[in-house]
């Protein structure tokens, strides 16, 4: 399996009246073909913006990719023209958005929206694209697919709309699927259905997935490797089992301890992370997690920690070794 995507030192910023928001501030990672990568973090940590940057869907102004490079299938995406980018978007690289209610066009039929990409990228004619659209709907588990092609989005439930989004995303056999909080707006039982479909389709087609979520459980179930983000940077990265078994960044540790688990004996009290996520316009110097960190040392206020190797394929951006509480 080769490397499908390499992201190097990606920086995306928004120029607002309050100042420059460093939404993504130097993110580096690789993705292998067919792999599932989890991108975890809280709202405002830059996880969605980093995915939109890959698709070059950052609204300019106010946003701009100011630095870094993104290599996908051997091409530097940031150097492509808008036309070349369009031939990749929805074709080689597709995205499923969080809001199944608002990301479909309410005045076009489902069939029309599905066949659009097929006609554009796969050069199909009307009959071919309609037949393929019906197949796609069937693949994502929508009954009476042929008849439902003529329905409008409002005639579908939330879970069904998200399935339509998946069908659209997978329509051109992409090599990479970006799933941005694909199930956050859905109920638990529907969430399980939708994620199982994504998993099945992607393993059949050999599609790599970047799944962006704040739900640690979803990542544990579906991701091979995990990147944890905080304040625009990756602060810890490891294979899923390693990350959950031996978290090495105080933030990851805090997240895992603050959520109640179904399979645990009950605790008297939860162990929350104190304080609030930082304001991305006025980031404190040094480590942005320092004000909330229980391991913080003087050094943390001075310098941003680089990613240290802390295990096999496991890196964490922290000056402190959380197993001993001492500086590295």
């Amino acid at each position, binding site marked *: 399996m080769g490397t499908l995507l390499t992201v190097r030192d990606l920086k995306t910023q928004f120029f607002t009246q309050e100042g420059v928001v460093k939404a993504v501030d130097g993110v580096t990672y690789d993705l292998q073909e067919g792999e599932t990568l989890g991108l975890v973090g809280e709202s405002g940590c830059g996880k969605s913006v980093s995915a939109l940057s890959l698709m070059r869907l950052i609204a300019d102004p106010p946003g701009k990719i100011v630095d870094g490079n993104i290599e996908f299938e051997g091409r530097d995406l940031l150097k492509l023209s808008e036309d070349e980018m369009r031939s990749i978007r929805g074709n080689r690289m597709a995205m499923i958005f969080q809001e199944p209610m608002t990301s479909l066009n309410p005045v076009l039929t489902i069939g029309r929206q599905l066949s659009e990409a097929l006609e554009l990228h796969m050069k199909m004619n009307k009959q071919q694209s309609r037949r393929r659209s019906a197949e796609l709907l069937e693949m994502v588990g929508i009954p009476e697919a042929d008849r439902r092609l003529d329905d409008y989005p409002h005639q579908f439930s939330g879970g069904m709309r998200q399935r339509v989004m998946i069908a659209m995303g997978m329509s051109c056999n992409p090599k990479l699927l970006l799933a941005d909080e694909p199930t956050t707006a859905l109920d638990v039982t529907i969430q399980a259905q939708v994620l199982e479909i994504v998993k099945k389709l992607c393993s059949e087609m050999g599609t790599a997935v970047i799944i962006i979520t704040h739900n640690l459980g979803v990542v544990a179930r579906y991701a091979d490797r995990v990147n944890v983000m905080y304040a625009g940077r990756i602060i810890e990265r490891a294979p899923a089992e390693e990350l959950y078994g031996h978290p090495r960044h105080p933030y990851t540790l805090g997240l895992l301890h603050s*959520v109640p688990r179904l399979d645990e004996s009950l605790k008297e009290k939860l162990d929350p992370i104190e304080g609030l996520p930082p304001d991305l316009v006025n980031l404190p110097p040094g480590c942005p997690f320092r004000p909330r960190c229980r391991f913080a040392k003087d050094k943390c206020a001075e310098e941003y920690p680089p990613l240290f190797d802390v295990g096999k394929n496991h890196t964490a951006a922290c000056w402190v070794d959380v197993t001993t509480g001492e500086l590295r």
Partner: protein
Amino acid sequence: MAENGHGSGNILLEVNNLKMYFPVTRGIIFERKVADVKAVDDISFYIRQGETLGLVGESGCGKTTTGRAILQLYRPTAGTVKFYDQDSGQHVELTALKGEQLRRMRRKIQIIFQDPYGSLNPRMSCGSIIGEPLKIHGLARGRDYNDRVEELLTTVGLHPYFASRYPHEFSGGQRQRIGIARALASNPSFIVCDEPISALDVSIQAQIINLLEELQERFGLTYLFIAHDLAVVRHISDRIVVMYLGKIAEIADHLELYENPLHPYTKALLSAVPIPDPVVESKRERIILHGDVPSPMHPPTGCVFHTRCPIAIDVCKQEIPELRNLGGGGKEHWVACHRV
């Protein structure tokens, strides 16, 4: 949490055969009723003093409607809601109260809303939002009023000088604290927590859960905790009610429900929740339900769950299952299923 739960045994609130139907109308000038949305359809349960009753279910199952119908924010179509008023030592039938009487009773039953953004008036300062119940119920004036607002802010972990700030200046977690302070202002004995944490970030959720637990301990509060996050409900509740399409599927002690779920819906719901541990996840058995929740306007005949149930048989399509107590040894474990 104590293993036997909180709750002194006295029943604080009793809901009997509660029904909440919303009419569906057609026509512009001559409106006629064409159907009912049976949001809550004949449910009964009780809440003990000092305990937390969790209410879980998917969207549209009627859990929020139940909370609002108890508070009489919706007037129930049928059924009774009996509330034990500790001050007068009497049982009050909330559905029979009107106007001034109901307003006075609202001092004792409060609600914390889901959306910390929509539930605070953006034109009111944080102090006046929290102080409004004090004014409405005539509980404090002048210096007492200011002292009480400051005290409430401190109680929920905010600085007293925040009183002059406006909602937009606060983060989601802080706003939810303001909502909690407002609910506490009138010294209620019972609070409906309607998904109080689902709009918050993961790291903030635990802060609010801990706060709610501390307040319960300190003021002897009773909660009806409505949520869809089963792990959170298991943590905070003493007993749990599982709802599906306006009906109760199962009621049990919080540990019993998770260790020994009886209703097939509860089982599916529990297995659908991913656990943040890849090792555990890879070994878990998953029950994936097919299809969507049916519309409450046309609920299925018989057992409302039979369309998605993996073990449904013919009788499930015809007869509505009764809620039966299957708990042994003095324990209560109610379940509405023909197959158990």
